[in-house]
């Protein structure tokens, strides 16, 4: 009788899950269909002609002048491949530093004609793979890069990009091989950047820090964004070593080199949030709320200071995520998992997002969110892939080590509970 009941009960749970999924799907589809109705504000007519509705890139920004100039040249010579690739790169570069994903699509447009030629030229393939990578389509990016590098094994840029894709996905053996190729084809500077990044992720943060220190001051001929990137890597390595003062100094230097850099802002803000320095986060990010990643961290800080007062902004952030879901964009599952966990307090849903994210990317922050959500949802077994990953790769860092310790403890308790 009890077997029957248990069987029924399990079936009931399974079914409840299916039903919930069905209902969620129906609800999501319908919410997508009624996205218009769900828009927070109704259309309006501004009262005054001088009302500023939207900030857009301005020509006082040299980067904007550069891509506008290139776009003009490319319009006049649409068949010039070299120009098209250069324009695409410029857009990607701008999108990357401002965090405006629209520029990924804009970068696609000029190279699109060559994507349909056989064989696709290597430079086009590599820039296309870079776009895929920025849209977190890592598997597709890797395949394109491998195909391109088979044809052009001397392309340092291709090797470097491939190394980065493999590092984001935690494929360190392949990344090591890619770094060797990048070094052979690209020289010392590239070798240090590539291997410094790799060492930092694989339990040798001390060596990484020392190695990157060699190129920290690359001299005037190194572009500012390259130096800023090295500062970011050094800050990461310093954090893994528990040297928080040094890490902060590197973030600050990086941001001095490239003010408003979206990626550095996010990392520095995460660093400050770990120390609960909410006022500093707000001061840092206030000018950049257009960027979803910056806005999210700002909302964390607001909620840290005054949970009730942050309600409107939490709602606004939820709407941003909803708009991404409507278009079917899942670039931010990690960010969304954190948001759902820390600000919406829905650990079960957060864990599901973190698990989906884990299928796509395995950077240190992905490891951390999987541990956090599994612990919060009281499902320590879900943390197992992250624990295995840490064991396999030697990932360091005080926070991730503490979380892993907790997860192992919870797992041991759960296993003991099963046995008794």
């Amino acid at each position, binding site marked *: *009788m009890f077997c029957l009941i248990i069987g029924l009960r399990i079936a009931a749970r399974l079914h409840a899950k299916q039903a919930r999924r069905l209902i969620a799907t129906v609800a999501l589809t319908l919410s997508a269909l009624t*996205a218009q109705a769900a828009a927070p504000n109704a259309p309006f007519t501004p009262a005054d002609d001088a009302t500023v509705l939207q900030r857009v890139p301005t020509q006082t920004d040299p980067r904007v002048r550069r891509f506008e100039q290139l776009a003009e040249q490319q319009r006049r010579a649409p068949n010039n491949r070299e120009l098209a690739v250069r324009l695409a790169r410029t857009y990607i570069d701008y999108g990357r530093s401002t965090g405006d994903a629209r520029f990924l699509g804009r970068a696609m447009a000029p190279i699109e004609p060559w994507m349909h030629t056989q064989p696709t030229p290597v430079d086009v393939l590599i820039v296309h793979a870079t776009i895929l990578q920025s849209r977190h389509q890592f598997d597709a990016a890797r395949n394109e890069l491998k195909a391109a590098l088979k044809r052009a094994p001397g392309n340092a840029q291709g090797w470097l990009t491939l190394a980065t894709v493999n590092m984001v996905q935690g494929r360190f053996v392949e990344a090591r091989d890619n770094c060797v190729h990048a070094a052979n084809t690209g020289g010392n500077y590239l070798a240090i950047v590539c291997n410094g990044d790799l060492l930092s992720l694989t339990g040798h943060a001390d060596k990484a820090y020392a190695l990157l220190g060699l190129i920290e001051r690359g001299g005037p001929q190194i572009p500012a964004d390259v130096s800023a990137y090295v500062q970011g890597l050094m800050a990461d390595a310093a954090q893994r070593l528990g040297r928080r003062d040094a890490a902060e100094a590197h973030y600050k230097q990086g941001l001095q080199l490239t003010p408003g850099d979206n990626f550095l802002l996010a990392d520095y803000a995460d660093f400050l949030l770990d120390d609960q320095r909410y006022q500093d986060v707000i001061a840092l990010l206030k000018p950049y709320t257009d960027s979803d990643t910056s806005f999210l961290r700002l909302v964390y800080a607001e909620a840290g200071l005054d949970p009730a007062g942050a309600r409107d902004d939490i709602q606004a952030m939820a709407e941003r995520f909803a708009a991404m879901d409507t278009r079917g964009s899942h670039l931010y599952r990690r960010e969304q998992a954190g948001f759902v966990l820390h600000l919406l307090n829905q650990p079960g849903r957060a864990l599901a997002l973190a698990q989906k994210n884990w299928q796509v990317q395995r950077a240190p922050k992905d490891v951390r969110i999987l541990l956090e959500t599994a612990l919060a949802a009281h499902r320590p077994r879900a943390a197992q892939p992250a624990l295995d990953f840490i064991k396999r790769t030697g990932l360091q860092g005080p926070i991730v080590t503490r979380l892993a310790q907790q997860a192992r403890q919870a797992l041991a308790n759960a296993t003991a509970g099963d046995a008794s």
Partner: protein
Amino acid sequence: MTQRPYWRFLALLCCLWFALPAAAHKESDAYVTLRSDPDNAHVLRGQWDIALRDLNFAIGIDSNHDGAITWGEVKAHRQAIERYALARLSITGDGLTCPLSATGQQIDRHTDGAYDVVYFKAVCDKDIPNVLGLHYRLFADVDPYHRGIITVHAHGGTAGAVLGPGNQSAQVNLRQPNRWRQFKSFVYDGMWHIWLGLDHMMFILSLLLPSVLIWRAAAALPGQQRGEWQPVDRLWPAFVEIVKVVTAFTVSHSVTLTLAVLGIVALPSRLVESGIALSIIVAALNNIYPLIDKRVWLLAFGFGFIHGLGFASALSGLDLPAGAMAASLGGFNVGVEIGQEAVVLAFMPIAFILRRTRFYRLGVVRVGSAVIIAISTCWFIERVFDVSIPVFNVILPN
């Protein structure tokens, strides 16, 4: 190393950071909403929200290049925007194109900034057909990742499509088939909800167990201390009894299910779930110490209200338009009934055949009810106090 290649390597470095989670705005979307015109069956009214930053990129709205788009600048570009946009959307009905013309301009705010709203109408030769053809090419040449999120409200139905440069055309179907599918899926859902929602099943069974028996009080049984269940003679009265119980339960749970799904009644789920557990205790207890033997249907009717609220939890959170709501609610209710009748049909003949045996009267009715009481008491404690009972949970995780 010479100067030149070194510089090239530095240029190469550009790709390194793109692997990082760099994108921080969503990509470009536009929203098209089409509604049938209540006054003219040939006409669809459209609203098209297009991001100002996308329009600025494609056709240049920021005339003075100061990095700030003002309402004045948007108004000045109204014609250019309308020409650009409307040339990139086609709506066809029955194979014939319905020409588009602009009817107004406003501004809307979305999560990623301000959007220009292009109001337009599509005038078809005939009445708006059930199947509309959409062809969408906005920004196809400047942003392959652009998406047009299209919603059509017509003929009392809602349909939608997400189109973009790689997927420019769609047929949207506005008539019933979707609704019917939805209805069926909810019928299925309702059935499973009854069969696998152990608590509803236990409640119904508790009520049905004595339906093939009749209670004889001690006074009517010479020489006995207490009353006992005795088999009924004929099938008909048992059948009538079952019909009464099931109908009463159906009527009352339908009422609360509807009220709850429509949001008219809302009780905390802890209260509802505890109430359901209590209802099972009472129903099963009544089989051992009958207080109500003639009008069991009253018990079914009374507790049906609380079970209806429980059913509603399976549907809650669905913010459906009225039509879809009716389909899902109706479908779910029909499913619950089918599930319930199936239980009754399976139970009745067996019970009727076994009714004279000691096994049925003692083993099934008394012991079975006692087990049900034990289980539902655990549920009740768990649900009221929001605790989990360790051993019980191993047997019946809830």
